[in-house]
């Protein structure tokens, strides 16, 4: 199953037989006070810097989130999307849980976007899926519902089944659905990552669906998070994860993802790996 994301001029394919797709997560003001103040003042210069850094770091898709409290998020998101599309040809993942912002963002976007995200809650799906259908976008759906985050892989699969039914009901092609199997914090629950890996495996085996997730969650509250994330992503890839939302500025993590592509056979004869090496040698 292939999920196609497009900008005006470029296509990215997510699939179980494809190199891993890195969705650069940094274009997001959450927890960044100065960036928030700039955005409130209508200054989007930091967006440009973040885009450049995510692209330079090796992002395949750019997540754009403009969730600044006490602002007009739809308007801000439209501005940001237009700006990002004017400086980069990478497809965009439109990140908001404000329905009006998603609607405005999808309207302004040129290409086939990924919408980040809905949950398996009925009212969220009822509001978001018609927009996804109307704009021919792809949708990332979290494997949780009204009752919270399911503790076991089996229970998450039940939510995925519910999401699949809703996707069918809204006549959205199944390849446009990505599941977020939910990466939880290993520092708060020693079994958290095992459950995530089992969920990834089951989603691949049972449904063959593509998946993406916020991967850095797993290392929350721990020292040397980069090393933990660098170990986690190849494990998740081996289990069937096809994409992640992550900060591509961290060379260590990007390198472990690309090495895993090679080791798992998605980068045959190491063409990408060797090209990366040569580029880095030239840049050094």
């Amino acid at each position, binding site marked *: 199953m292939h999920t196609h994301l497009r900008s005006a001029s470029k296509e990215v394919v997510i699939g179980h037989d494809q190199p891993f797709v890195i969705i650069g997560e940094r274009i997001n003001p*959450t*927890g960044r*006070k100065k960036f928030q103040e700039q955005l409130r003042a209508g200054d989007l210069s930091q967006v440009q810097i973040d885009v450049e850094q995510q692209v330079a770091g090796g992002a395949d898709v750019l997540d754009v989130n403009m*969730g*600044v*409290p*006490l602002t007009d998020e739809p308007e801000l998101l439209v501005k940001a999307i237009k700006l990002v599309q004017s400086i980069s040809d990478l497809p965009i993942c439109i990140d*908001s*849980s*404000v329905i009006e912002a998603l609607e405005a963002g999808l309207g302004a976007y040129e290409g086939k976007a990924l919408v980040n995200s809905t949950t398996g809650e009925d009212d969220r799906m009822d509001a978001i899926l018609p927009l996804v259908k109307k704009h021919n976008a792809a949708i990332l759906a979290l494997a*949780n519902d*009204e009752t*919270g*985050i399911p503790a076991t892989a089996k229970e998450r699969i039940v939510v995925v089944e519910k999401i699949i039914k809703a996707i069918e009901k809204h006549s959205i092609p199944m390849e446009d659905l990505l599941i977020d199997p939910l990466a939880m*914090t290993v*520092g*708060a629950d020693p079994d958290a990552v095992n459950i995530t890996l089992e969920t990834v495996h089951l989603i691949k085996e049972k449904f063959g669906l593509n998946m993406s997730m916020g991967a850095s969650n797993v290392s*929350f*509250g*721990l*020292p040397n998070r980069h090393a933990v994330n660098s170990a986690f992503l190849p494990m998740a890839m081996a289990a069937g994860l096809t994409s992640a939302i992550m900060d591509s500025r961290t060379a260590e993590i990007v390198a472990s993802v690309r090495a895993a592509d090679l080791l798992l056979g998605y980068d045959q004869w190491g063409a990408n790996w060797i090209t990366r090496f040569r580029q880095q040698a030239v840049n050094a």
Partner: protein
Amino acid sequence: MSKEQVLKEIYDETMLGNGPRVIELTNQGLSEGLTPDELLFEGLIPSLEEVGARFERGDYFVPEMLIAGRAMSGALDILRPLLADTGAETVGTFLMGTVKGDVHDIGKNLVNIMLEGAGFQVIDIGVQAPPEKFIDAIKEHQPDIVGMSAFLTTTMPMFKVNIHELTKAGLRDQVIIMVGGAPVTQEYADAVGADGYASDASTAVRKAKELIAQKRALAKA
């Protein structure tokens, strides 16, 4: 083992998160004549305070804080009924919940641990708590402080909704309201009409104590 040795070991083992050993030591301390108050205020609470201080400095990490909190909870389960018997005044009652639409609980749990560690009675109403749940719990438990946690910019507006609902229910003025969570700022807390905000678990405890002291001083004046 002398009383001092028991207290010292409770302090050390709580900090290491050795739950079974802390329970053993708590029972041993009681049988050797330590009062529940002494065990709490001279063993467990100082230990958790040190855990909080280390966490704030970046010397302690989330798992260490969680297991230290769990070790303390085990001892508290033994001490709580005894403390109730002695009629010791609690530092305060803190009602805590993550707002509707939000499932994040690690930050909330860390704050709970530090509050318990400081001697607060903590009532946790869990994640995705709608306004009605806050209201029912306030009526039932009569807390001094209500803490609301939100981890998303999209769920933060629930603070304002909750405060509005508490006002409508006539409960707003009987509680202190504190808010927190990754995207929350002092500015935002002020904008929604909360009484207090803290950026991390240790600060939250300090702030909670401050606000209660202020309120009790006002009540006396």
